[in-house]
């Protein structure tokens, strides 16, 4: 895997990009804005080409605001193009027009105060701009310091006061914009294309344009959703040595000479866990050699950090499939790390969709693995749900143990008719009616596979456009029980109609909350709130959403050949009440705010 920030990508010739761009038949429904104060030239061509490669149909159109159009670009992207993803590529001359090779101003006479004064004006304007675009994806790129027109008296091998001042002002401004939601692109080392700058006003070389365009499109429109769990081998991966042969005292995991890579790897995994990634291990070892002693090793990772583990002599693929089942996630959301090439081959062959990587053998290769993993698990914001996920898995063990114990003792929790076994769990469902403005809503829609009625994924701009649609609603549900908080685990969005029909566009439920009847509660409360007579929607089989189909079937709701389903009010209300009665659950609706959707 190539990284824009680490390694050059395969070259797409400009003639190929031009040809691809010219062949694009955009519907114009979706747009991407590229805003800068220089002539973007081939940057536009490459962005459009990569967008065309990314979207086989409904290709977004790339609109550019280049030379002398920065202000117009900012205005357009905060009005007509307010919801469109935008890339703002700043130049040094945006900070002060004396910081340009092409400026008519004299070189070398700028003071820090002058740069600061103009920089402050730009900062204020951009802060207002980004706040106006709140919710829309806004990407930022800043020019490298090497592009400055040597404003100081010192050698180019050093940075003088003017260059440092410009750099600090630009950095502080971008940091502020980042706090307001701007996403800063990490650019590769960019050489100034002096010839293109002089003749065409474009400072970017072809290679730089391609690299930036590729990074931007990959970030703005990722092809694969974020992975959810990492399964690591132990011997030779989590530590150096073989615990079954060397004993607990013979393995090494640093921080000392040859334990360092493993020490850092463990710390890196701990960091991923804190970002919501589920950790598991799968090792061919005797259970008794590993599990009882793991916490006594005093490693950066503890046994409780792992949401699941298998330590036996079964095949790795079998163990990994069983971990996926235990964690209730699809195999394509898994990443495996193992030091044995044969094991990796077996895993890749028998666990469909898994991403598997070999433990590096050389110290220098570890960083590339970290970059790869960081990319697979990358997220812009670590939400409360992310932080809560690993703990929810852990508390699920307590839930299961409690239910098993109750079953043995013949207590009410042991009953298995319907959801009665949940009636000691103190289930609390809090429904939020203004969930359009909660980023978790779109996140859940875009990452849920199993209970997902249509499989439809929405980009941020499509989401914002949908939120602005008349009579559109978005509800989300948060679930808590006696063991803890699941966070937001259910989202339903659709439109209410005057004829009493509630039309559902998307309905998803996190697999962590399966079996608790939240979906029935949501549907019933929705019908109750809307006063609708019918609720209808589409069901599209994705090959992975059998739980969603079963839910509809459980309500005796037939799906037509066109994928249409429809449930009457009485059925929805009855299903909801049954869950509330059987599970002794409570449902609470947070009042709809007066300012409506955002």
């Amino acid at each position, binding site marked *: 895997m190539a990284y824009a920030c680490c390694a050059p990508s395969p*070259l797409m*010739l*400009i*003639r*190929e990009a*031009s*040809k691809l761009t*010219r062949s694009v038949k955009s519907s114009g429904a979706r747009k991407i804005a590229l805003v800068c104060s220089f002539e973007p*030239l*081939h940057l536009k*061509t490459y962005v459009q080409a990569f967008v065309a490669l990314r979207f086989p149909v409904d290709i977004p159109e790339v609109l550019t605001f280049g030379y002398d159009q920065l202000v117009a670009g900012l205005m357009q992207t905060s009005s007509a193009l307010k919801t469109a993803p935008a890339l703002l590529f700043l130049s040094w001359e945006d900070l002060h027009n004396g910081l340009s090779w092409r400026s008519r101003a004299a070189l070398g006479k700028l003071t820090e105060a002058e740069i600061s004064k103009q920089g402050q004006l730009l900062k204020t304007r951009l802060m207002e701009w980004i706040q106006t675009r709140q919710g829309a994806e806004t990407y930022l790129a800043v020019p490298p310091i090497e592009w400055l027109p040597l404003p100081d008296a010192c050698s180019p091998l050093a940075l003088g006061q003017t260059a440092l001042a410009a750099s600090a002002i630009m950095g502080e401004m971008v940091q502020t914009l980042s706090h307001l939601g701007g996403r800063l692109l990490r650019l590769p080392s960019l050489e100034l294309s002096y*010839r*293109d700058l002089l*003749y*065409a006003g474009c400072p970017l070389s*072809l290679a730089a344009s391609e690299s930036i365009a590729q990074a931007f499109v990959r970030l703005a429109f990722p092809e694969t959703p974020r992975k959810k769990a990492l399964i690591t081998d132990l011997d030779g991966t989590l530590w150096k040595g073989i615990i079954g042969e060397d004993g607990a005292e013979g393995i090494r995991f640093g921080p000392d000479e040859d334990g360092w890579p493993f020490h850092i790897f463990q710390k890196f995994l701990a960091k991923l866990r804190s970002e919501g990634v589920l950790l598991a291990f799968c090792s061919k070892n005797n259970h008794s050699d590993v599990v009882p002693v793991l916490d006594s090793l005093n490693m950066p990772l503890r046994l409780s950090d792992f949401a699941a583990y298998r330590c036996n002599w079964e095949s790795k693929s079998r163990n990994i499939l069983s971990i996926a089942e235990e964690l209730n996630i699809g195999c394509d959301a898994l990443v495996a790390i193992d030091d044995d090439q044969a094991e990796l081959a077996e895993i890749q062959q028998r666990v469909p969709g898994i991403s598997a990587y070999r433990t590096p053998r050389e110290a220098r290769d570890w960083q590339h693995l970290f970059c790869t993993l960081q990319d697979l698990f990358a997220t812009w914001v670590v939400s409360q749900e992310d932080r809560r996920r690993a703990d929810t898995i852990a508390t699920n063990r307590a839930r299961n143990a409690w239910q098993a114990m109750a079953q043995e003792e013949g207590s009410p929790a042991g009953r298995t008719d319907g959801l009665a076994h949940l009636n000691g769990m103190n289930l609390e469902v809090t429904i939020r009616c203004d969930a359009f403005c909660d980023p978790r809503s779109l996140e859940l829609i875009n990452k849920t596979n199993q209970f997902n009625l249509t499989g439809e994924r929405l980009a941020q701009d499509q989401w914002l456009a949908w939120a602005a649609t008349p009579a559109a609603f978005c509800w989300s549900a948060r679930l808590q029980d006696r063991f803890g908080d699941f966070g937001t685990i259910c989202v339903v969005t659709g439109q209410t109609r005057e004829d009493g029909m509630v039309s559902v566009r998307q309905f998803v439920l996190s697999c962590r909350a399966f079996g608790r009847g939240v979906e029935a509660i949501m549907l019933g409360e929705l019908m109750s709130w809307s006063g609708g007579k019918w609720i209808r929607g589409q069901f599209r089989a994705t090959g992975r959403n059998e739980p969603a189909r079963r839910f509809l079937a459980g309500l005796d709701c037939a799906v037509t050949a066109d994928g249409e389903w429809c449930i009457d009010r009485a059925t929805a209300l009855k299903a909801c009440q049954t869950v509330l009665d059987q599970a002794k659950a409570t449902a609470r609706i947070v009042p709809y705010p007066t300012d409506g959707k955002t």
Partner: protein
Amino acid sequence: MKDARVSDLVGQLEAIFLDLMQEDKVPVRSRSRVNCAGWDSLFQLHLILAIEQEFHITLSDEDMVDLNSFDCALKIIQEHVLLKDGCDGRIL
């Protein structure tokens, strides 16, 4: 041998023109800044960059100014490529 090389260059340059310019009235080898409406400054730049990428050469400022037609482009490329290949660079 040299003829075959030149024939390759013509073919490669034709492909570049066809990829970069939508023009169906003027045959590729006859195209110039004068007879093609699509030969604007953006096409000129893309042509320069495409030639540099395709033939792994760097055009001089003078070449960029001289690049006014298919024939001129071919001549410039021949000079660069054949010189690089060790030929004398004369126009064939």
